[in-house]
């Protein structure tokens, strides 16, 4: 296998190097890639979509269809992880751990045993994650709202600066994952339930596709945001900007929810009770 691997790699590499001879040098402004299709995106983005960030306008409008499927890909990945890993009732872990907050004592409760009531003094604990660090926890608690705020900014300001639905959605998702890591998965799940996440993830992509379908219903082509000017008080170019914003929001929601779903399922091996 090793020899085969080396052979394949050397052969492929040699072929690719051979082909690279014809490529333009690095940073060549006159390469075909820079001359044929892309200039229009840069030169017309303001005129056609009123979005200064060309990446955003290409992403969500010129090639918005790709992006819709990109969101769908991540949604599919989330559904896949859920379907592959999620274990439903009847296959619970044999025991749960609880920690007495004040003393740091840990309790183990068997599955058949009496469940602890929701007490202030005790908190559920992940069996694989024993250390308890007050500073870390407090800091994360403190940080998470700011992270989320920043995420919203990234989503909303994608028209004018680097950012957009994906980036913002990932940050948003990361904040919830941070919560699950710094505390425990059950508290994270209490904030936002599995079912809510699932609905969010599907709602996000549905917002995207729905915007496209709305344009179609309004009599234009699929994803032609200009059609939105018929129901929103904006001109067609502004409608494109608006449409881009709508789909970015959808992307943000979908990415956030999906990231969390993937994390939850991977980290808890599908039990969805204890994380890493």
């Amino acid at each position: 296998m090793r020899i085969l691997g080396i052979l394949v790699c050397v052969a492929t590499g040699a072929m690719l190097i051979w082909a690279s001879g014809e490529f333009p040098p690095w940073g060549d402004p006159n390469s075909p890639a820079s001359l044929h299709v892309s200039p229009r995106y840069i030169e017309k983005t303001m005129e056609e979509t009123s979005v200064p960030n060309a990446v955003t306008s290409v992403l969500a409008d010129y090639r918005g269809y790709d992006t819709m499927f990109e969101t769908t890909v991540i949604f599919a990945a989330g559904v896949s992880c859920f379907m592959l890993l999620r274990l439903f009732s009847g296959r619970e872990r044999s025991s749960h751990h609880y920690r007495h907050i004040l003393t740091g004592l840990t309790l183990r409760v068997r599955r058949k045993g009496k469940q602890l009531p929701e007490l202030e003094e005790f908190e559920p604990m992940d069996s694989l994650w024993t250390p308890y660090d007050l500073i870390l926890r407090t800091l994360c608690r403190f940080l998470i709202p700011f992270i989320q705020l920043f995420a919203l900014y990234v989503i909303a300001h994608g028209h004018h600066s680097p950012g957009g639905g994906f980036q913002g959605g990932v940050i948003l998702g990361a904040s919830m994952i941070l919560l699950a890591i710094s505390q425990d998965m059950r508290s994270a799940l209490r904030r936002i339930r599995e079912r809510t996440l699932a609905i969010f993830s599907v709602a996000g992509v549905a917002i995207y596709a729905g915007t496209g379908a709305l344009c179609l219903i309004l009599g234009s082509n699929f994803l032609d945001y200009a059609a939105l000017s018929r129901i929103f008080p904006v001109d067609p170019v502004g409608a494109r900007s608006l449409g881009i914003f709508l789909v970015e929001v959808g992307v943000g929601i979908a990415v956030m929810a999906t990231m969390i779903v993937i994390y939850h399922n991977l980290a808890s091996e599908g039990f969805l009770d204890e994380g890493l």
Partner: protein
Amino acid sequence: MDRILEVVIAKYNYWIYIVLMMIGLYGVIAKNNLVKKIVGMSIFQTAIILFFISMGMKKGATIPIIIHGQEASVRASDYINPLPHVLMLTAIVVAVSTLGVALALAVKVYKEFDTLEEDEILEKIRKS
């Protein structure tokens, strides 16, 4: 010699991506541990992302966000090519999704066989 060196330097982005890609490919083909294979796969995908990003570069250009106040006189050569970035945003997402699914599968494989070494798994299959 100088000419060759010049070519090598002028196109160094391509050499880097090719080397990275071959490392990834080798990992996928030759490594025994499934997670290492997954890592190799990720390197492979990342190399392609690098390739695309590097082709969008233009010397002396800035990021493709139209500077406020200059909307009227936009020249394409002043901004780098946004298209590869867009494409790679998609490719990154795809790579992440593939990675997620692959890891989920690895978890399932581990549950089934109690190991992630491919030869041990094959041994177990042969025995059963």
